[in-house]
C-alpha cells in the first residue's frame, strides 16, 4: 500500500482553514495520481492504493468540513464517496480471489476444483466491477472532479485569508 504523501507547511499553529486547503489539495492530487493503475487486474495494488487515497481524502474533507462552503463541500464529498464505493466493489473480489488462491495452493490437486470454481465466479465479478470503475473514472473526469476539488481547496484558503 502506498504511503500517504506528506502535506507541506503544516504545523500546530497553522490556521485550520489553511491546513484544510493544503490537506485537500495534496490528498485530491494523490487520488487521481493512481487512476492509471486502477484498471489493471494483473496488479491489484493499483485499485487498492486509489481506494486508500480516497479514504484519506474523505477523512480530510470530513475533518475540515467547517472550512468549506457547505454546498460545494457536500457535492464533492458525495462524489468522492461514490468513487470510493465503486473502487470498493472492485477491491472486494480482488481480496477474495487472493485469499482463495492462497488457500487453494495448500490443497491436494483433487480437492481444488471447488475453490477454483468459486474463483472463476469471482473473476466474473471482478471484470464487471472493473468496467464499473472505468465508467466511474470517465464520469469524474467529465465532471472535472479533480479540478473542482482543487477549487474547493482554494476556497478554504481564500476564506482564511479574508
Amino acid at each position, binding site marked *: 500500500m502506498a504511503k500517504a504523501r506528506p502535506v507541506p507547511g*503544516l504545523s500546530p499553529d497553522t*490556521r*485550520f*482553514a489553511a491546513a484544510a486547503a493544503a490537506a485537500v489539495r495534496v490528498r485530491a492530487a494523490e487520488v487521481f495520481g493512481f487512476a492509471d493503475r486502477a484498471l489493471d487486474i494483473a496488479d491489484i495494488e493499483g485499485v487498492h492504493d486509489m481506494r486508500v487515497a480516497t479514504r484519506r481524502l474523505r477523512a480530510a474533507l470530513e475533518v475540515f468540513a467547517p*472550512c468549506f462552503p457547505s454546498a460545494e463541500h457536500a457535492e464533492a464529498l458525495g462524489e468522492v464517496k461514490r468513487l470510493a464505493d465503486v473502487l470498493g466493489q472492485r477491491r472486494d473480489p480482488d481480496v477474495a480471489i487472493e485469499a482463495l488462491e492462497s488457500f487453494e495452493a495448500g490443497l491436494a490437486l483433487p480437492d481444488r476444483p471447488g475453490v477454483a470454481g*468459486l474463483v472463476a465466479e469471482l473473476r466474473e465479478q471482478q471484470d464487471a466491477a472493473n468496467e464499473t470503475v472505468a465508467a466511474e473514472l470517465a464520469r469524474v473526469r467529465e465532471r472535472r472532479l479533480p479540478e473542482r476539488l482543487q477549487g474547493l481547496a482554494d476556497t478554504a484558503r481564500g476564506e482564511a485569508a479574508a
Partner: protein
Amino acid sequence: MKARKVKGLAENGDFAANARRIIEVRLGELCALAPKALDESRPKKLHDMRIAAKRLRYVLEIARPALGAGASDGARAAKKLQEILGDIHDCDEMLPRVEEHARRLRAADVDALTARAGARARDLDPTLASTAPNLDRHRGLEALAAHVTARRRVLFARFEREWARLEERDFPATLLESINEPVPAPQAPQAGAAA
C-alpha cells in the same frame, strides 16, 4: 454507521486545537463500541468498530503534523486494530459467499438428478449420484468453509487480546494526554550540514 458531528470547531482557530476536539469525539466512538463488539454474536458491532477505528486512524494521520508523536502512536494503534477487524470482516463476507456457492451447485445437481430419474420414477437410483454435473465442483468447499470459520475464531481471539492490551495501557487516556503535549518545532538545518 454515521460519524458523530463534532461541535465547536473554529474555522479560524488553530489546526491543533480543532484536531484535538475531533480526535476526542472519534476516540469516544471507538471506545463506546468496544463492549458490544467484544460480544462474538454481534458481527454488525464489530463492523461498526472497524469503521470507528478507521475514522480515528485517518484523523490522527491528518493531525500528525500538528500533534506530533502522540498522534503517530495513536494512528499506529488504530491501524492495527482496524486491520485485525478488517480480516475478521473478510471472513464474515467469505463464509456466506462459500455457502451460497455450494448451495447453488447443490441445487443444480438436484435438478439434474431429478430430471434424469424421470417423471414417473418410484425412487432415485443411487448410481445416478456419480453423474451429478457438479460432482467435482463441491470438492474443497467444505474444507474452505471450515478454514474460514476457524480463521475467524483465531482472529477474534487476537482482537480480544489486542483490545485488552490497549485497555491495560489505558489507550484512550494515554492518547489524549500525548496529543496535548507540546510539539517540538521543526529544527532548522545547521549551517554547513550536508544536504
